[in-house]
């Protein structure tokens, strides 16, 4: 049975407003999703009743806060099917997760001449940390090419692999085009040459079932705010045996076992990587977001989003001058496009005048845009609370824009 979208929409207060006199149509979900009331309530409730620093306080509030905080970690463990909760580290977001790996991994495992592989589809946050690493270590960054549809060329990837490959860091689902990468094959091929694999799960985590054990990835980074949770929070999964060999990220409280002026010994994972007081309130509220997703079920969410994507493709294809960008066979609900002879900013601005929120520009994937010969795209990305009637409004708005431009 399908989801009751009207009922789901009712859980998101922000959706019920007018923008420039028109009802809001929010299609910028790949940038950030809206938050259900339960997440907002959990956040308020924490500050009203439980606010306290965790893991050390000898009092009831600290005990409650610690328990709720660790309950989220367990919820995430099940959400991605990690073997144990200690394999889940809280970060500021996907970007920090990637930087954590880049920064700690390089200190121990990367030497001059070693190679790191990424793909053409990467977000800047999965390019720049590796460039910094390569510059510092004299390592080499290799890039998997793509075809016109926006899919990686697997045979070319295999050619890039060698015993020099230390790490493959690849996006699970592209934020700019929606392409779902064949990550299982990528991981197996990388492991065959002894390389570790990091998956950028910023987009995939909200659309796909994630099973890190089945994937066998070494790291999986994602953000809470793209999963109906708070901003400024993310998770980095890492296999225990990999995490344990890595040096700490930042120094401070929480991450130590014992400190003397002569020498400090470090805490066990996950605390080794969580220096300082964490983002307690947001972590606790994040559990409400995970509960929300679990109640609906990822499969039902995906089915609804897929239906929206194919409906949008159908409707928008009828618009004169509609140019879809990224036509991979396997996609999450991201529709990137251009309207002939129009700059994406102009299209986005006119859609905004119609109350429709989309993203325009290079989507923090400038090398990808360059590869596709584009300055940018308009991106409509769909979430569980979006409806077909909203897509009708997008199609109407775009037809009008295209007509006026081509008159």
């Amino acid at each position, binding site marked *: 049975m399908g989801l009751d979208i009207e009922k789901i929409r009712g859980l998101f207060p922000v959706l019920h407003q007018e923008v*420039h006199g028109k009802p809001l149509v929010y299609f910028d979900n790949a940038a950030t999703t809206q938050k259900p009331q339960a997440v907002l309530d959990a956040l308020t409730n924490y500050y009203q009743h439980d606010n306290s620093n965790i893991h050390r306080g000898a009092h009831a509030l600290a005990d409650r806060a610690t328990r709720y905080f660790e309950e989220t970690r367990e919820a995430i463990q099940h959400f991605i099917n990690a073997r144990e909760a200690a394999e889940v580290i809280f970060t500021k977001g996907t970007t920090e997760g990637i930087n954590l790996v880049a920064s700690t991994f390089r200190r121990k495992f990367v030497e001059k001449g070693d190679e790191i592989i990424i793909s053409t589809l990467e977000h800047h946050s999965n390019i720049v940390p590796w460039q910094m690493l390569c510059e510092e270590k004299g390592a080499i960054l290799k890039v998997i090419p793509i075809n016109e549809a926006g899919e990686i060329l697997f045979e070319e990837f295999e050619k890039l692999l060698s015993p020099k490959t230390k790490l493959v860091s690849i996006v699970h689902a592209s934020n700019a085009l929606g392409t779902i990468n064949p990550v299982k094959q990528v991981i197996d091929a990388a492991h065959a040459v002894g390389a570790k694999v990091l998956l950028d799960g910023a987009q995939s985590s909200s659309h796909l079932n994630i099973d890190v054990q089945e994937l066998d990835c070494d790291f999986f980074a994602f953000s809470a705010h793209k999963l109906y949770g708070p901003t400024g929070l993310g998770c980095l999964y890492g296999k225990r045996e990999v995490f344990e060999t890595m040096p700490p990220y930042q120094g401070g409280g929480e991450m130590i076992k014992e400190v003397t002026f002569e020498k400090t010994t470090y805490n066990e994972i996950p605390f080794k990587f969580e220096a300082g007081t964490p983002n307690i309130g947001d972590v606790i509220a994040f559990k409400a977001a995970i509960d929300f997703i679990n109640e609906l079920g990822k499969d039902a969410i995906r089915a609804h989003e897929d239906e929206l994507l194919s409906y949008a493709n159908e409707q928008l294809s009828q618009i004169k001058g509609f140019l879809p960008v990224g036509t991979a066979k396997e996609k999450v609900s991201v529709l990137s496009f251009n309207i002939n002879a*129009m*700059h994406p*900013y*102009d299209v986005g*601005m*006119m859609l*905004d*005048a119609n109350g429709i929120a989309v993203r325009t520009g290079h989507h923090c994937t400038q090398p990808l845009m360059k590869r596709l010969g584009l300055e940018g795209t308009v991106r409509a990305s769909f979430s569980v609370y979006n409806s077909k009637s909203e897509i009708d409004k997008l199609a109407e708005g775009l037809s009008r824009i295209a007509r006026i431009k081509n008159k």
Partner: protein
Amino acid sequence: MSSIQEVQDEIVSEFEILGDDKESTIYYIMELGGSLEDFPENERIEENTIKGCQSKVWLIADEKDGKVHFQADSNTDITKGLISLLLRVLNYRSPEEIIKAELNFVERIGMGSIIGSQRSNGFASMIKQIKLYALAIQTKQNA
């Protein structure tokens, strides 16, 4: 030639006719961009772009009969429209007039809410660059 203030008053009354309808306002701004004179192809270079704009904006200035002559272009129609508004007020004026100009039309038409805060920064960069050009030409005149 109308004064800077008179031109600004004209713009304000045009936008008043459009009222609160955001879509018409945006279309109107985009149409205004068509009034920009053709930008010389050989000047479409990095040095002539304005920093701080989300879209690409090229702006050049030279002196004509003691006045400042601006030419500008952008890769987006809305930005072209915005810059054409600025040039309508400030083109072919003396450097001193441009430097001293108080661009009250920007606030009076509610530019901030039309183009949003991200573009407003870019719009401010355009104004700054126009005034810098005027200052450079004034310095040259006084040398």
